[in-house]
């Protein structure tokens, strides 16, 4: 009999405990057990990046990541980006730059960008392209995303999971 495991992790700044099967992927647990459907499942083989979430600040493909690997770790999904009614600066910039069309790749690209700016607040265009190279977009294209990330990097120093900083603070 397959047994169940108690998985404890921190998701979007909340401690959660959930009963999971050994074979569950993190994407499955987030979507089907925790109701966080912002994380998308695309190719299911690590090619498209739609399922990207951050684990301890690192972008990973959650649909090929065993859920039990996340035990004791901090997981950030797209639902954790906005604070109260305030969108994350990257989310705002994506909207303003027209970087969202069908939206399926957007959560993954946003998280890849969050990880980039956290590690490298002022990336070059090449570094931005590399950081989102694991995320496929089939409608908008990448230029608007790159512009949006560049705009945020100009005005923000530390981003990640913190409330937005206003320019005069």
């Amino acid at each position: 009999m397959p047994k169940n495991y108690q998985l404890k992790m921190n998701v979007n700044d909340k401690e959660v405990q959930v009963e999971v099967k050994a074979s569950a992927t993190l994407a499955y647990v987030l979507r089907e057990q925790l109701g966080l459907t912002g994380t998308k499942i695309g190719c299911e083989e690590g090619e498209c990046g739609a399922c990207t979430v951050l684990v301890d600040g690192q972008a990973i493909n959650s649909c090929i990541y065993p859920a039990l690997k996340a035990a004791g770790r901090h997981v950030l999904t797209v639902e954790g980006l906005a604070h109260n009614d305030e969108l994350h600066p990257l989310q705002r910039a994506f909207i303003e730059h027209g970087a969202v069309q069908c939206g399926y790749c957007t959560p993954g690209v946003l998280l890849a960008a969050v990880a980039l700016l956290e590690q490298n607040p002022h990336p070059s265009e090449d570094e931005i392209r590399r950081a989102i190279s694991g995320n496929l977009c089939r409608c908008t294209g990448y230029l608007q995303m790159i512009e949006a990330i560049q705009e945020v990097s100009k005005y923000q120093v530390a981003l990640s999971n913190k409330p937005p900083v206003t320019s005069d603070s």
Partner: protein
Amino acid sequence: MTCEDYLIASTVEEALATLASLRGKGRLIAGGTDLVIQLQRGERNVRSLVDITRIPGLDEVKLEDPYIIIGAAVTFSQIEHSALIRERAPVLAEAAAQLGSPQIRNVGTLAGNVVNAQPAADGSIALLALDAEAEIANLTGRQWVPIASLFVSPGVSRVDATAEMITAFRVRAQAPRESSAFERLARRKALALPLINVGVRVLLNADGTHVRDARIAIGPVAPVPFRAQEAEAALKSRPINQETISEAVETAVGESKPRSSLLRGSKEYRRELIRVLTRRALLRAVETARG
């Protein structure tokens, strides 16, 4: 993904004892970027996964002169960003930086790359150019074995991940007048299998005028990661000039056996790639070795 148990090992000995008790039905998992897909496709039958990535010390890169030691749970991102590897085994840092995507590199490991034994594996090609060794641990003990001895056929390595494990790799940190380089061409720059990849290492004489020794590894041009030994011999003790480089490059083209493939291109095109990429890698390695 199908499996019934997911066990997290806290020591190498515990991982090995767990595998032994499972009698072939357990399998080690590091990053799982290949293994989880194989399980989802039903290509492997595994009852219990034994995760080695939380074993203390296994995620470290360190210098134990003359070796750089790379633990089995070290990810490609760690390798790509390791100052030690970038400076003293650059072919490996360059290969790690071009493999997969950021998401794959944040999770995938060299050990997994080697155990999966693909002739095109970027990590394996770099390790081959470095004459790397792997430390294999099983119930009888631990021993260092040359990386080249681990590849059997496409997808099959000599490491039985249901009973033993790679605990670390070691490569000699490059000496003065030594350097290495990696070149790869794929359909796009991320998430694409290499049409050809080449890893080279050169050691020059003290004046930087002659090649003392060289390694050239090329993939995928044979069932296993391939070393162009005739081309290496063509460089040995020769003065560094256009003629020497061209002769070595043509020798490498001659001894490689790329096949035509819908995925990777025609053999004629791929032979041309071997020519171009081997030359680029050699010129770059020689230039940095001269300092």
